[in-house]
């Protein structure tokens, strides 16, 4: 399959990308790893006039860890997130989630920024960044702005990104001591995408939930925070009864997607089961 013709520019700075986007926001596409865009170009689902290759922008690369926060550049690949020992020490959920994405070759090219900006309803990182209470940093003509991950995803393949903006980095506040995260997913057997994926972070204090956050992907049109279930568990123990109640709440608060592989009812049930399993794993 051959894409339709387009022009190509390899960007040398973020400022250049923003200028080019400003010139023709609707006819321009950004490419980093290209593992979502290339298949779309080949199927001619996308036919941009101009493709801007942002792959060599060093300002969008790398992982920086400070005492208060962790910054992940948009161009950081799944493989880099899987293999970073520094990041694994702080937040092992990154390598755990990365190992569940696609296959080694795809992980070598695909980037976290691309995954978030593309907002595939079944992508893995959206649930993880929501549970981590991350902020997404966006660059545009007016400079930088930040949006909470839970507010970043709007609909299927749709985010708060304007056509002339670019996702620059992900900022995660350093979790409080004792906060533990887990990501669980039911993989689609052919595509490897999440039929349902649940990311949970919990901090227990004397057996009672002091902090909790939940991110859900795969189930609905976009990733979202399981706020109601988190509110229910705050101040309670992770007893089997409380876990069951929270998982039920989460599965009922969502309007689930339905497709040939999984009905809405089945997805709701998977939310309940995976939330239960995630919370049980974090309860000990």
């Amino acid at each position, binding site marked *: *399959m*051959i*894409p*339709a*013709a*387009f*022009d*190509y520019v*390899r960007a040398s700075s973020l400022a250049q990308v923003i200028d080019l986007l400003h010139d023709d926001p609707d006819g321009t596409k950004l*490419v980093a790893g*290209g*593992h979502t865009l*290339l*298949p779309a*170009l*080949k199927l001619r689902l996308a036919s941009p006039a101009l*493709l801007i*290759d942002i*792959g060599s922008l060093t300002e969008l690369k790398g992982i920086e860890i400070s005492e208060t926060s962790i910054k992940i550049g948009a161009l950081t690949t799944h*493989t880099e997130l899987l293999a970073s020992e520094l990041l694994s020490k702080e937040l092992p959920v990154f390598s755990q989630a990365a*190992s569940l994405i*696609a*296959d*080694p*070759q*795809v992980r*070598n*090219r695909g980037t976290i920024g691309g995954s978030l900006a593309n907002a595939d309803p079944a992508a893995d990182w959206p649930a993880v960044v929501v549970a981590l209470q991350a902020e997404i940093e966006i660059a545009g003509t007016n400079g930088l702005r930040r949006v909470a991950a839970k507010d970043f995803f709007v609909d299927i393949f749709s985010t708060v990104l304007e056509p002339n903006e670019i996702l620059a980095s992900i900022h995660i506040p350093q979790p409080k001591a004792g906060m533990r995260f887990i990501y669980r997913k039911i993989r689609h057997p052919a595509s*490897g995408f999440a039929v349902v994926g649940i990311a949970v972070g919990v901090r227990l204090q004397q057996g009672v939930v002091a902090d909790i956050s939940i991110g859900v992907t795969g189930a609905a049109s976009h990733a979202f925070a399981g706020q109601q279930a988190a509110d229910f568990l705050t101040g309670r123990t992770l007893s089997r009864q409380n876990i069951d109640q929270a998982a039920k709440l989460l599965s009922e608060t969502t309007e689930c997607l339905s497709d040939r592989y999984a009905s809405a009812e089945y997805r709701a049930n998977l939310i309940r089961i995976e939330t239960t399993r995630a919370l049980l794993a974090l309860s000990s």
Partner: protein
Amino acid sequence: MSGSEKLHDVTIEVNGVRKTIAVEARKLLVHLIREDLGLTGTHVGCDTSQCGACTVEIDGRAVKSCTLLAVMADGASITTIEGLAGPGTELSPIQAAFHEHHALQCGFCTPGMVMSVRQLLKDQPDPSEHEIRHALAGNICRCTGYHNIVRAVESLTSKGDQP
């Protein structure tokens, strides 16, 4: 195709040889490798980044060359299956292990499999059977049932040293 489509110079090092080729922006890397360079050991299977038959190494990492534009590889160093052993030379250890363990039938997926195994053994010199299977998740073989492929890779690990 329009005869006036703009061409972009791509300079790449393939199997140690540096080349500059003018390509259309929409040309896939796998087509540059097969058609412009004549290196037909890299195969196009599914053309949708599922099967891994087109796997090559770019700057030391295994990638699917059907899902990359040739222009995106400008400046990169690429190794294809032809870079592992030339005609009349001895097979590389991975190729020899595939031969020894009958890890192929039709052979279509083999170049991609070998390139993925190369990446695996660089990252993890002594993988378990589970790790081998996990590392080959991006390569599909429709003949062997994978068993002999896994045995071939195991023969290159500490397990293979045992009698």
